[in-house]
């Protein structure tokens, strides 16, 4: 599989390569600079962490529409005055707990309440945004100076790279290990590929499904910390439409929405394509309308490139 795996991502690498070439040609001075690359990675970090969780859920045969909303809720909860009093560490823990908790609720609804994932997580999306608005009174909550340790994730650099990029990398690596080297990962493929077979093979499909959503929630919690670091705020507007971006990245990366197949690497490459596109547009000063048109075309081309590669494997 690993050989096939590399083959499978060839198309994505080609797409990324093409975008990089476009960048080098159009903006030779700005594109390949360290600061631009770092800026892209920092931008990708938040949604990247979420994408890792989304990959698990989708391979497991589900879908999570609530990722952006959960991230918003976690960011708001972690930045209320009450939470901020306890300092940055508690704030981070709070974000993670809120994220995981909301994910767990998704998991319970899907696995034990047997709601269709689309609906259960749509309900969570709506409700979590509402709760976030209520909690924040629709205001943007600034992180106070005493708690700037959180903001330092974004401002402090190690070898020229902001800490939050390391967090992102760590989540990717851990996610990869979990998916490829553990029984949990193996079961995720089984549960998504053929739940009935998984059940008859003695896997507790419901429990596993629940855990997948909790894992996705956990990732949203971590992402909340990153977005807090980047924007110095918690807000109910954070993460708007992240669900679409995350799912799109996962699917462009070759994971099937029907479950049972997919890779973390693919998802991250898919995400980088999006990040590159946005970066190129801003560097070249395209206006939004043209950006949108071009983005649509590039998505199609990227996937066509990749599909050609997948064909023989299917």
């Amino acid at each position, binding site marked *: 599989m690993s050989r096939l795996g590399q083959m499978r991502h060839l198309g994505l690498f080609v797409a990324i390569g093409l975008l990089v070439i476009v960048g080098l040609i159009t903006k030779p001075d*700005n594109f390949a600079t360290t600061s631009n690359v770092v*800026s892209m990675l920092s931008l990708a970090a938040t949604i990247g962490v979420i994408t890792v969780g989304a990959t698990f859920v989708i391979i497991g045969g589900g879908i999570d529409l609530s990722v952006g909303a959960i991230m918003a809720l976690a960011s708001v909860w972690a930045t209320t005055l009450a939470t901020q009093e306890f300092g940055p560490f508690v704030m981070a823990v709070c974000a993670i707990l809120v994220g995981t908790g909301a994910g767990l609720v998704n998991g319970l609804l899907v696995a034990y309440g047997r709601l269709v994932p689309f609906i259960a997580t749509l309900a969570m999306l709506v409700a979590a945004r509402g709760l976030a608005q209520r909690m924040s009174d629709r205001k*943007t909550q600034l992180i106070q100076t005493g708690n700037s340790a959180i903001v330092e994730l974004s401002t402090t650099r190690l070898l020229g790279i902001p800490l939050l990029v390391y967090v992102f990398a760590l989540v990717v690596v851990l996610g990869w290990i979990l998916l490829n080297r553990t029984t949990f990962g193996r079961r995720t493929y089984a549960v998504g590929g053929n739940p009935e077979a998984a059940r008859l093979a003695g896997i507790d499909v419901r429990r596993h499904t629940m855990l997948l959503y909790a894992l996705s929630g956990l990732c949203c919690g971590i992402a909340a910390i990153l977005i807090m670091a980047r*924007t110095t705020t918690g807000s109910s507007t954070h993460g*708007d439409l992240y669900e679409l971006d995350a799912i799109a990245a996962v699917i462009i990366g070759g994971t099937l929405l029907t479950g049972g197949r997919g890779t973390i690497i693919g998802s991250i490459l898919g995400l980088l394509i999006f990040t590159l596109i946005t970066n190129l547009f*801003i560097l070249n000063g395209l206006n*939004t309308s043209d950006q949108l048109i071009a983005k649509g075309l590039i998505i199609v081309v990227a996937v066509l490139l990749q599909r050609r590669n997948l064909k023989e494997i299917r």
Partner: protein
Amino acid sequence: TSNEPAAAPSSAAAPAPAASGNDQPGTKVVIGFSAPAADHGWIAAIAKNAEATAKQYTDVEFRPVDPTNDINQQISAVESLIAAKVAALVILPNDGQQLNQVALQATDAGIPVINLDRVFPDKLAYRTWIGGDNYGMGVAAGHYIGAKLKEKGVSNPVILEIQGIATLPLTQDRSKGFADALKTYGFSVTAKQDAKFTVETGNQVAAGLLQAHKKIDALWNHDDDQGVGVLAAIKEANRSEFVMVGGAGSLNAMKEIQSGSSVLEATVTYSPTMASSAIKLARLIAQGKGMSDLVENQVPQSITLASETITKENVEKYLPLGFES
């Protein structure tokens, strides 16, 4: 923001009622209110100000409806208020043109419509319009930046613009005013990108622009809400070589200006207090009264707020009017 421990008293945004005869209780009136979804500090302040003002009057029954960003739903919401036969309607439409017809319907049904901010194209559709001056905002920002750069003697300056939602007419007005004012100094906008009025989008767009332009002379950000994100991106990139001007006049932006250590040197106002005034106007119109400070017996047909420029020098005066983004 809400996290300022010593937050300004909530009444700050809704100025105390003027001590005039008009505030004496009159006939009881029901005022309907419809606005876009309050997913944004400025709009939230609009909704809050409207409600707070209505509560000051014992003769006003305030009836807000489902704020939504979907035109179709806002039309239904307004229809429901017409059906409920309210005495006056205060409408901040998602889009003036798209809601024009339903406003006409209300007017035809004999309900005076107070058009707040985004304007209906058809004057028959409303009784009174009150709103900010989007073009004027751009002009104010343009003049501040133009003068500043002239003073520094910069030629061919790099001037950037971060807009709000690009499809709103108000955005286009602001940009036009900005460009026109800059032109008087012989300057023009180098690049502009639109954000979506949220902290996050402001942050993303700013991060990108900072990469695209290694040296910047001035930056106008249309909206102080997204400005929080813009400022975060600027701090992260460790840049300070330019002047930044904000828009709307949030408390947060004012504090930033007050500190004097920020790139944010000024902001041009677009105050959500207009919602308080709109409610007052609606009450007066419904009760058939005029504005007591004016000579006329009736409320005027249109009121445009001036866009003021807040700088370190005058910020003290504006602080009580700043809204929490």
